[in-house]
């Protein structure tokens, strides 16, 4: 049975998963959840995802949620496409450096990129008042954090080493919304961050889903 991805087409976390499915050329059916109508908070939905969040997958009866966990599962289950290196290294030290990079994404990027995008993009989309102070302090901290990125990316191509990993791809959904939120940090902080960010933006897998996740039956 083909893998089913349940989510919202433009949701950041849904597109994070779709990107990796496309990277690994995994056929999948996209099933749209009516978030506007609160379908993700229904009793039936909560059976599969107790936090009432999108996305989740149903892989032939195996249910999994949390976008980063789903991405790791895909990379673990399927072989990397011919001519590419796996998005998660398997040797113990390479894997440790990947985990370090994955933790950087979650500890040093997301806590600041997400509130900035929430205030200026998501709230605006729902006609809710935005908190400029939250945006300003988030961007200020993100600016400082990106100095760390600039140092790392001056020594190696990607966050875990010289090969791209999931840790780099995890940044895409929020990093690409920062400009819409009003911040050009990703292309002005420093030459290394700019180089890395632009390369990520050019990935065909991201471009295939950036305007909305959809089904892919073949590649």
């Amino acid at each position, binding site marked *: 049975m083909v893998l089913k991805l349940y989510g919202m087409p433009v949701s950041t976390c849904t597109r994070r998963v779709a990107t990796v499915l496309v990277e690994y050329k995994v056929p999948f059916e996209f099933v749209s959840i009516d978030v506007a109508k609160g379908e993700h908070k229904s009793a039936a939905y*909560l059976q599969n995802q*107790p*936090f*009432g969040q999108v996305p989740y997958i149903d892989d032939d009866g*195996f249910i*999994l*949620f*949390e*976008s*980063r*966990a789903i991405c*790791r*599962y895909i990379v*673990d*289950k399927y072989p990397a496409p011919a001519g590419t290196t796996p998005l998660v290294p398997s040797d*113990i*030290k390479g*894997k*440790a*450096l990947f*985990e*370090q990079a*994955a*933790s*950087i994404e*979650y*500890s*040093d990027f997301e*806590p600041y990129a997400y509130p900035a995008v929430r205030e200026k993009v998501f709230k605006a989309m729902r006609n809710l008042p935005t908190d400029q102070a939250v945006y300003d302090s988030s961007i200020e901290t993100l600016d400082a*954090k990106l*100095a*760390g*990125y600039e*140092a*790392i990316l001056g020594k190696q191509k990607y966050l875990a080493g010289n090969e791209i990993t999931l840790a780099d791809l995890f940044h895409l959904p929020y990093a690409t919304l920062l400009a819409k939120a009003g911040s050009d940090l990703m292309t002005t902080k420093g030459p290394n961050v700019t180089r890395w960010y632009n390369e990520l933006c050019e990935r065909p897998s991201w471009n295939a889903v950036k305007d909305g996740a959809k089904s892919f039956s073949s590649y």
Partner: protein
Amino acid sequence: MAILKLHGGKQATCTRRVATVLHELQVPFELIEVDVANGAHKSPEYLKIQPFGQIPYIDDDGFLLYETRAICRYIAAKYPEYGLIPTEPKANALFEQAASVELTNFDPSASKAGLQLWIRKMGYPFPTDDKIIADNLETLEKKLDAYEAILSKQRYLAGETITLADIFHLPYGVFVTYAGSESDSVMNRASRPNVARWYKQLISRPSWLAYLDGVTTTTAY
């Protein structure tokens, strides 16, 4: 082979998380205290090792690693016999789901409220904010309702046996209880008996009890 060196702070929150896992895995380690009070973690030499100027990091016979969850995962992978990261594919996926739940649904509110409550309890001279504590505890209460649903069906977050995903809830899972009492706190409510059961199991572990007064060099178990 040199003993593993844990560079951090005796009482520091994230240093404690790593020490707890090192203890779980019976790994000897030396604590090397970083002089955070005097900004040692922001020096150019330190930033070459940890570019975000944070503690802790480890030096495992010359292999340097930072980010506590990455450190914990690295050590757990070296000693798979302890089962703290399941290897069977579906069990591993459920572990990753649980580890991600800790990151996205627990840590944001628990670390914000927990850090401030810990600062107050320790009497450290840093500003704290009642509203930040209250707002984050309120968010955490709702998240723990979902934990109750999960833990009513299985003993631990990834299944029937304990994994790193459960242990990652320390130390902030303890610090957030400082707003309540031993018999009634956000982690220990009559309305969430399964969360309370799981929480009590976590704080009973010898690895947590070993460093209640702070992390210390541990050469034997």
